């Protein structure tokens, strides 16, 4: 009965209400509901996200009841007190009692809201006693995840293809919310996130975890999540960070503890293999082939696929002094970046193999023809020599 009543009120009243009654967010793993049913905040899968949801609903309902009164009086006078009906205006224009009343009652309501808000905020800020520490670094325009103390780290970037974005190919289910490698986390463990950024400010937001925290260059922010249910949870970068802002999604894959352990072991294994590969020597063809792939993934965003850059914003590499000049300088720019510009330090982001391949590619593609090669071992030596 009460809920019937609420529904009726909801239908009759302000659009604000739409939030409250349609958004019964059935949360299934990776169910991403289709358009029309998206009306409310997800309840999410952590205690924090649930607290936030409850707070949100409390305030929504407070607003609803206040609006019933306020809009009610207003609509009543708009219907009953019309000049066209011959209604004569009263002449009152002051009442200290009434003024006091509508100052004090809102204050009391706000105090009532302040209690649960304070409590959730304290919980949200309690980053102590974590089981796992993950360092999250924002880059233009991808995320790096580092499992602290495990020697595992990787880049997570968008896999949606350019033709799909420009409507030349059909869009698939997870258009713009799919990545090459998700962040894998175990359920039931308290995970602490340490956030920072390498270039501009980004913000790591996964609604289902109730987490949004800015990644600020030069500073480390902390927050945490303890996921209750296994599933795939998707999110986005929330702070404007340049032209790729909409193209650096987040995917979290929450799995059981056992699965997590297996996965972590495999990742450690793979990291060892990669370190081994850095000692090999490659042919020019091999480097060019690898370089083209890696360039298109990591560099083309700014310097564009044909090496011509974007005039006025990002320099061309085709015919550039650095790509055609001494290897040492080229290495320096790639590994350490150029401070004060958008050119990042890729030394910590890419493997030695990829760095070597990209440098070789840049020196020999689009009509650049220096003819020399850079081997992974050269990159390693350069890094160690610093």
């Amino acid at each position: 009965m009460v809920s019937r009543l609420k529904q009726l009120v909801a239908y009759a009243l302000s659009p604000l209400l739409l939030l409250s009654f349609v958004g019964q967010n059935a949360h299934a793993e990776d169910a991403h509901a289709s358009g029309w049913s998206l009306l409310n905040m997800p309840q999410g899968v952590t205690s924090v996200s649930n607290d936030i949801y409850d707070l949100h609903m409390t305030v929504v309902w407070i607003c609803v009841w206040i609006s019933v009164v306020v809009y009610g009086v207003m609509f009543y006078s708009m219907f009953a007190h019309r000049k066209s009906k011959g209604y004569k205006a009263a002449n009152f224009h002051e009442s200290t009692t009434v003024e006091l009343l509508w100052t004090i009652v809102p204050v009391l309501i706000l105090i009532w809201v302040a209690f649960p808000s304070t409590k959730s905020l304290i919980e949200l800020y309690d980053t102590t006693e974590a089981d796992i520490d993950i360092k999250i670094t924002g880059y233009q325009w991808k995320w790096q995840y580092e499992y602290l103390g495990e020697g595992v780290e990787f880049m997570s970037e968008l896999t949606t293809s350019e033709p799909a974005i420009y409507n030349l190919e059909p869009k698939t289910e997870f258009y713009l919310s799919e990545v090459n490698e998700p962040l894998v986390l175990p359920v039931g463990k308290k995970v602490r996130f340490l956030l920072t950024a390498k270039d501009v400010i980004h913000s790591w937001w996964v609604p289902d975890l109730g987490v949004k925290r800015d990644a600020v260059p030069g500073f480390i922010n902390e927050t945490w999540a303890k996921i209750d249910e296994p599933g795939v949870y998707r999110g986005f970068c929330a702070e404007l960070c340049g032209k790729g802002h909409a193209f650096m999604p987040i995917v979290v894959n929450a799995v059981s503890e056992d699965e997590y352990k297996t996965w972590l072991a495999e990742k450690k294994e793979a990291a060892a293999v990669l370190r081994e590969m850095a000692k090999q020597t490659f042919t020019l063809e091999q480097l060019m082939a690898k370089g083209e792939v890696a360039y298109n993934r990591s560099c083309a965003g700014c310097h564009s696929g044909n090496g011509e850059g974007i005039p006025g914003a990002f320099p061309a590499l085709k015919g550039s002094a650095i790509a055609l000049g001494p290897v040492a300088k080229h290495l320096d720019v790639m590994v350490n970046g150029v401070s004060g510009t958008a050119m990042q330090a890729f030394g910590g982001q890419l493997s030695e193999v990829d760095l070597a391949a990209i440098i070789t590619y840049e020196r020999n593609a689009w009509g650049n023809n220096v003819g020399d090669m850079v081997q992974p071992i050269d990159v390693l030596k350069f890094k160690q020599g610093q």
Partner: protein
Amino acid sequence: MAHGPAKGIGRWLFATNHKDIGTMYLWFSFAMFLLGGTFAMIIRAELFAPGMQLVKPEFFNQMTTMHGLVMVFGAIMPSFVGLANWMIPLQIGAPDMALPRMNNLSFWILPFGFALLASTLFMEGGAPNFGWTFYAPLSTTYAPDTVNFFIFGVHIIGASSIMGSINIIATVLNLRAPGMTMMKLPLFVWTWLITAFLLVAVMPVLAGVVTMMLMDINFGTSFFDAAGGGDPVLFQHIFWFFGHPEVYIIILPAFGVVSAIIPTFSRKPLFGYSSMVYATSAIAFLSFIVWAHHMFTTGMPIAGELYFMYATMLIAVPTGVKVFNWITTMFRGSLSFETPMLFAIAFVILFTFGGFTGLMLAVAPADIQYHDSYFVVGHFHYVMVAGAVFSMTAGIYYWLPKWCGKMYDETMGKLQFWIAFIGFNIAFIPQHFLGLAGMPRRYADYALQFSDWNMVSSIGAFMYGAAQLLFLYNVIRTIVAGEPTSEEKTWEGAEGLEWTLPTPAPFHTFSTPPEVK
């Protein structure tokens, strides 16, 4: 009268008459409104469907940035300065503004400020692309070179605002007619007086922050560059110390307009005049101490979060008082619904809705989810468009007959109102849903689950845009071919000195001060 306006273009270039300057401000701001509106239409057209159709992401970012800057600094703020120029002398019985030559200067530098800003659209590197809040280091180290034009543009616009406000303060404090005591001032004058103090206090802060950017970009300082020992979050503190009062700078004069219109069409005096004055002052004071509610996700210490949460919640109280007073003014009045009243009522309804979402945003833990999502975009369009722009529209319809001695077409006015009202809600209600469902703001493209509501929102936005063309047409038609009226009191319920003057208001008014009892 001694003499009329000068002839030819000189009348406008060398204008010192408050009415002429007011008129120029109003037309200029309308031009900016159309320009900013064009940017908005481009944004909504691109977001009509997922995928990039019309523009590239880099241009999209330029559009969101320019839309925000032009609307806030070019459309809304100058339009209220224009209204102040026209109405404050008429409402306090003054012959003109206190500093007429400065008035000329403060208007005439504006077009140059915006020319600087807009010229970047045609330069290599493009227009500013870092959002109207221009957070460092995206707006410093990572900005296109054209950012320097933006910085100087902001300096000029800021100087104009400061001069405008000093003029208003000087006028209100010194040129009131005999008997016009402070507590008899019409609310529009009161809200503008308080706004002017806010402007004088915070525009220099804006100038300061852009100057620090200029230094970081060109002269090797590191205010906002962590690599040199600076702090990007410091930028946000300074910006929002300007930015939060700024949002009240935008809304307070709008409160004043609505407080004039509602009593007129309710044929009943404003309820709680003095509490309105106190509430406005309280809002102005509180607006200085809540700025970091825009920064709940930056990782402030918890003590800071709690303080800014409580302080922000408090602002809802005086805001509520204003709404309750307007509604009680309507209660047991004798209401009629001409176009200005329709816009004023819509203002109260929709602004209140924006106040509700403001209250939600004030709750810091919940703001973790709302922040930087479309929910915030929904919130501030309810307070800024349905707030400031609706009230401005109401004000123009309300005083237009007094200004030009012609009556606007009521049917067309009402038609415009309904298209604007319906279009506005279709455009912005869905943005709340999008935000709650997880769509971040300033996104050039989005995941498929957001498609439906984005399409709805775009359709609403186009409707709202069309209503503005109707508005332009209706105003021009009124001036050119409206039905002449010479009634002193256009509206039977209107009170105040401006309605004691002949219609249309002569070039010089109150050369001898009126006596206010």
